[in-house]
């Protein structure tokens, strides 16, 4: 007011005020002087006096030249307009960072052009690094300080600037060691303190009652920080995140219904990533903490987030599927043949979501208490509990990937739709797995399918999970997706009976076995699949649970698998140890043969088992011939093959015992083709003369352990998730408009 030092400027220009709330800022003035000094390089300053009224509130100032800003806002705060900014192309980065520093110092409120900042940092060449390091350090420092500011716009800007700094510096120093990066960002000596402050501020922002968009931004900053490197374990800064844990903040977000709805997804992904930091090398506090969480609402919350994400995926898939099958064209294609169906499938493929699957895996694998969440039914009423604040103003897609649909999460009353099936996380997961497993051709989906099977392995090993899988009182109808195939009709959904959940798991395994006998044989998945079945059988045997399941389907699927292995022996042997798989399959039969009395549902089913073996004796005979041949030769498979020969002992005994009996029965009765009933009759009457050998260790299995077997897989998986998350964490997606609108009213 008193002093009007406004210089006439030409475009491009920078408007700056050296007054903050009516008093002159010494620092600003100094900076202005500095700037004026370099104005000969093309910068012209225009100092706007406090109280100047020629700027309308919230008038957008647009500048088109590349620079710090592409756009800004005029903001009238109490005493007058504070900012008007525009951009300019600077020739030197030094200048640029000086200005940035200045902008914080003088409490200018504008959005950093993040891309520009990042690219600027990248373009800094070697010599300049030293010069700008101080500036970056203090910029970092000021950003961290600003997180504690009351003025939320500053917080927003600080968060975004930090994000740009992390990214830019990493981008610049891809090859540099983590320590160099830390030095560049914060300076070695102060790094610890800076990061501590940063984490504390983020923690209090996340846990406070502040704006939801701000929380969302905090999570994005963290996601950004976690994913700056391709390999998460090389991200040395995370060491500070380990020391200054934000685990509790994440849990708090998950336990609260409304915040879970808005940030749950990001929180869960962040947690999953943090857990994977130097998982195998050091003690990761997040692993430790996650494994001991026993707070039900929190675990439930986590389950809900995963549940929602997977449900969303299933829904999207179904929509696409219906779209594709609805029209005339699709009926035509399906008439033309399965060739095209594969194409249609490609089109169907909805981007899978490994991040959320990884989170589910970590929860199931690390936390024993989480298992109960799997069975926790999720009728939608649970969600009705809060949304008292009708604010969620962020129509943003978190991570750009499948967002948990807010509508569903906030649906206040359970629609009394009679067709609505009560569901739980496990059911949703099984449906998801059934979709993912349909097509394992590309790497992503193969990994997804593998992860699904690993999760199922963990579940099948857990006693509590087994207990509710087999709980006779918890019957569900699970509509698994089945691959359309020529030789079978698509099962009509409604016909699936309501059964204990384990039936759905077994169905899924059978489905997989039947549909993946292809040249590019997914051996690894098959092994896991058969092992899951084995684990379930072991549980049933141990607890004497007589599951009313059509075991016949499983038997015939397994026999077909053996048949496939036999007929493709040469191609497969080039890549895989098929004997191992064969051994597992044969041992499943041995389980049924020797322990059938403990878990088969009816005495008839035992007869049927024999019937099935005898009926398909050709397959077993051939298998025996093959393994005998391989085991007598010297070669790398000798050992493996001979194990299979031993395992086949009972099956062969059965075949050798009953075949002659059946033949003579046919001969005596002059029947050329015996009916099933007749064969069963022969089986029933000839048990007593058959002796079986009891094999050891049939009901033993190797427990799942991530290390060392799976470590490589997870490393790779986390890397791809990191890339994906990084790609999708876009601070620009969090529209500045929304934020500014929100905060302009707050201030």
């Amino acid at each position, binding site marked *: 007011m008193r002093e009007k030092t406004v210089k006439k400027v030409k475009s491009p220009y920078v408007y700056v005020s050296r007054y903050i709330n009516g008093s002159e800022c010494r620092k600003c003035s100094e900076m202005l002087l500095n700037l004026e000094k370099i104005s000969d390089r093309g910068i012209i300053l225009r100092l706007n006096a406090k109280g100047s009224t020629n700027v309308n509130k919230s008038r957008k100032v647009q500048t088109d030249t590349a620079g710090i800003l592409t756009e800004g806002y005029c903001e009238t705060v109490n005493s007058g307009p504070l900012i008007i900014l525009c951009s300019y192309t600077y020739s030197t980065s030094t200048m640029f960072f000086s200005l940035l520093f200045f902008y914080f110092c003088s409490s200018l409120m504008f959005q950093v052009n993040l891309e520009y900042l990042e690219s600027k940092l990248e373009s800094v060449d070697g010599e300049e690094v030293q010069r700008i390091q101080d500036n970056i350090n203090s910029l970092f420092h000021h950003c961290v300080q600003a997180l504690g500011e009351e003025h939320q716009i500053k917080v927003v800007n600080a968060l975004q600037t930090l994000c740009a700094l992390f990214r830019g510096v990493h981008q610049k120093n891809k090859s540099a060691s983590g320590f160099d990066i830390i030095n560049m960002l914060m300076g070695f000596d102060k790094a610890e303190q800076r990061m501590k402050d940063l984490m504390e501020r983020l923690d209090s922002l996340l846990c406070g009652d502040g704006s939801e968009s701000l929380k969302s931004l905090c999570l994005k900053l963290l996601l950004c920080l976690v994913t700056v490197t391709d390999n998460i374990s090389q991200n040395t800064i995370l060491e500070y995140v380990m020391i200054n844990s934000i685990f509790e903040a994440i849990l708090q977000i998950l336990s609260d219904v409304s915040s879970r709805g808005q940030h749950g997804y990001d929180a869960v992904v962040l947690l999953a990533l943090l857990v994977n930091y130097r998982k195998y090398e050091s003690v990761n506090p997040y692993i430790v903490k996650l494994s001991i969480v026993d707070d039900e609402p929190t675990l439930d919350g986590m389950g809900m987030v995963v549940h929602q994400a997977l449900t969303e995926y299933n829904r999207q898939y179904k929509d696409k599927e219906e779209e594709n099958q609805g029209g005339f064209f699709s009926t035509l294609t399906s008439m033309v043949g399965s060739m095209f169906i594969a194409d249609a499938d490609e089109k169907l493929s909805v981007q899978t979501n490994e991040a959320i699957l990884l989170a589910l895996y970590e929860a199931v694998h690390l936390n024993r208490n989480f298992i109960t969440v799997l069975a926790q039914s999720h009728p939608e009423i649970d969600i009705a509990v809060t949304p008292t604040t009708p604010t969620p103003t962020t129509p943003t897609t978190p991570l750009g990937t499948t967002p948990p649909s807010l509508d569903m999460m906030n649906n206040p009353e359970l629609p009394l739709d009679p067709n609505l099936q009560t569901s739980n996380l496990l059911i949703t997961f099984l449906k998801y797995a059934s979709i993912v497993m349909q097509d394992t051709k590309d790497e992503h989906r193969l990994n997804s399918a593998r992860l699904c099977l690993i999760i199922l392995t963990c579940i099948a090993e857990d006693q509590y999970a087994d207990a509710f899988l087999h709980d006779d009182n918890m019957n569900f109808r699970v509509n698994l997706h089945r691959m359309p195939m020529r030789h079978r009709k698509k099962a009509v959904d409604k016909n699936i009976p309501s059964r204990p959940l384990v039936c759905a798991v077994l169905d899924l395994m059978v489905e997989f076995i039947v549909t993946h006998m292809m040249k590019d044989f997914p051996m690894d998945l098959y092994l896991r699949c058969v092992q899951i079945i084995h684990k379930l059988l072991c549980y049933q045997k141990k607890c004497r649970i007589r599951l009313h399941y059509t075991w016949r389907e499983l038997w015939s699927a397994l026999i077909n698998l053996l048949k496939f292995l036999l007929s493709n022996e040469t191609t497969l042997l080039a890549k895989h140890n098929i004997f191992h798989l064969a051994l597992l399959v044969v041992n499943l039969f041995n389980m049924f043969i020797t322990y059938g009395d403990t878990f088969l549902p009816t005495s008839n089913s035992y007869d049927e088992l024999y019937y099935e073996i005898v009926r398909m004796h050709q397959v077993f005979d051939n298998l025996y011939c093959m393994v005998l041949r391989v085991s007598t030769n010297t070669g790398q498979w000798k050992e493996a093959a001979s194990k299979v020969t031993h395992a086949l*002992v009972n099956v062969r005994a059965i075949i050798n015992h009953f075949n002659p009996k059946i033949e003579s029965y046919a001969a005596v009765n002059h029947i050329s083709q015996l009916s099933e009933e007749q064969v069963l009759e022969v089986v029933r009457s000839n048990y007593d003369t058959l002796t079986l050998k009891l094999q*050891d260790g049939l009901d033993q299995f190797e427990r799942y352990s991530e290390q060392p077997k799976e470590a490589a897989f997870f490393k790779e998986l986390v890397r791809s998730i990191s890339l994906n998350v990084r790609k999708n964490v876009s601070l620009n997606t969090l529209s500045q408009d929304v934020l500014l609108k929100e905060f302009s009213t707050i201030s």
Partner: protein
Amino acid sequence: MDDTEPDLSPTPSDQNSPSPSLSISSSPSLSLPSTPSSEGVGELSLVIDAEVAQRACQEVLQKVKLQQVEGDVTDPQDRVGQDPPGPPAPALTPTVKPLKIREEVDDPEGVAPGSVKSARRRQRHNPSKQSWLLRLFESKLFDVSMAISYLHNSKEPGVQAYIGNRLFSFPHEDVDFYLPQLLNMYIHMDEDVGDAIKPYVVHRCRQSISFSLQCAWLLGAYSSDMHISTQRHSRGTKLRKLILSDELKPAGPRARRDPLTLTPFCPVTSPASGGEHSLSPSKRTHQRSKSDATVSISLSSNLKRTASNPKVESSQDEPVRLAPQREFIKSLMGIGKRLATLPTKEQKTQRLISELSLLNHKLPARVWLPTAAFDHHVVRVPHTQAVVLNSKDKAPYLIYVEVLECENFETSSVPIRIPENRIRSTRSVENLPDCGMTAEQRAGSFSIVPNYDNDDEAWSVDDIGELQVELPEVHTNSCDNISQFSVDSITSLESKEPVFIAAGDIRRRLSEQLAQAPTTFKRDPEDPSAVALKEPWEEKVRRIREGSPYGHLPNWRLLSVIVKCGDDLRQELLAFQVLQQLKSIWEQERVPLWIKPYKILVLSSDSGMIEPVVNAVSLHQVKKQSQLSLLDYFLQEHGATTTEEFLTAQRNFVQSCAGYSLICYLLQVKDRHNGNILLDADGHIIHIDFGFILSSSPKNLGFETSAFKLTTEFVDVMGGPDGDMFNYYKMLMLQGLIAARKHMDRVLQIVEIMQQGSQLPCFHGSSTMRGLKERFHMSLTEEQLQLLIDQLVDGSMRSLTTKLYDGFQYLTNGIM
């Protein structure tokens, strides 16, 4: 003191003086000020003191003695006409009475004569008749039943007021039995009765949360038959509101914390607070209730949880003391309502399970099952155990509820929540329950570490032919891997050859084991309750206890309850009362008839809860699942006819049959198809569903004209119509009827009072009571009664209608 007293008059202020308002209400000659204040808040300050009550009793007694005769002599109309002149007298009494009473306190024994004399002096009455009544009232024989009866029959306000006060001296349980009667009288009878009852009800409400809720529910239910406009202003509705507003909390802060030390009649201990209280009663109470609320919130953290439903929180007027339980009941009812909208049993079951799992999140809390016999807190609902019961359009369901027994559910602290998964940390993975296996079984099937070392040796033979050769004792120590029955043979040391097993053995064991468990029913999605109910209670308790995180606690108990939503249980409650009454009559008369009255909780005119009969399945389920005749089923379950077990079961069957036959006859219980008759594990039959009793019958089809259900199958179980047991059956019925006849009034009274103001179908028509009375056949000699019984039994046995009705049920409802 005496000087100030009259001034304070409407609101009692001091301990030392008998509450004038009380004496007013008990004073017969006073026409009560029936202003709203007497109904509402004004009366909150009414303090009931043991002494006061007693004194009031005696005082009233005097009046009764004086007026009883008058009442008897004069016509009711006359009496009403006489009432108006009454008022002059009371103007005198309040001031005089206290003095007199205080003198009398010192010598309670001498009270009666003295006061009688004085009374006589004043009112000149015939002493002899009064003293009879007086003696009766004071005698030890005067029990609740009589009190209720006099309360109902006497038109004399004095008697009613006396009895109202006498109620205080009966044990709570005894009065509780007649609570429906009391409240129904309160609602539907004239003001004098209501005024007589109210102090007692209010007093008990102050003492107990459960009593308060019980009253509120019953008041709501029994008011519902009134016309909507009158209902809103009826005294019943007002009292209900008063209770639910939770103004009726224990008067003193100390009382809250420790009601046990509370002497039954003296809630106010500090004169100061009492005095203050009376100055501005309504305001005070309100403030206090608020502070109490905050205290109780901090005391019981569970409240927040129970009230976490936003709907509750929004209505802040909701009283805190009663809130948790009301919410609990409300959510159970809500579940029932939502289930009713689902079309299939399967969906209902799934939905029920998931809804209950949500309910679990809010437990433990200060909530309880009102049908239970002991104090407890509900800690968990094992949701997977819940089943939907068979019903066409409603959705009644059965839940099991884990509770922790406690001293007093109002004061004992609510148990801490143990997370569902905590159960797992108490046991290591390896020791998880083997799902219903006995210890021996477990030992047999448990596998520890595979004996890989022996493996290779065992596999040194690869020719099948050699399998027959007996191997040396390689596997003696690897028995863990062997199918359990092989283990048995090893342990019996008959064979040291574990390596070989006969396929035939496996097959045989399979069928044997499957045959071993014939007593479980097969799961049927259309009838999910059959399996759940068939499982022996003890086994269920053990199983649920094993799976519960609270199971290790010594005071853990399992309860079960049927939640009915959309059904009027008032008739059931009436039936329960009659059954209970008959049961105690038979016990008193030592007649070995067996019946099982099951508890009913009426929550409103269309909802309630029922205590399930444990270890019992319906005859329908028995027949459907077993496909056997009843006798064959008995043989299957209990053994041959000569075994002790069978004979016991048969005796049980006969005794229960006789009991229920009588009940069916007396109460005219209809709709007796096999779905409504249960058979328990001991052979008793138990009739359930008293939806059609007395004057009502299903759809008025006129079926089932027989006195009770006695099919040939029943008779077969009893050993045929010529057997001893059948005669025993008839003999029991005769004895039972004679005993019941002797105490007929106790039964009649229950029914009669409930008829008041009731629209229940069982009271349809005018002859309900007369018919019931007639069925006791007071006029017949015992010989004639015997004849009657024979006739009834013969008639029922021959009755075509029973068969017809079963056929009808089979056709319409699929009930066998």
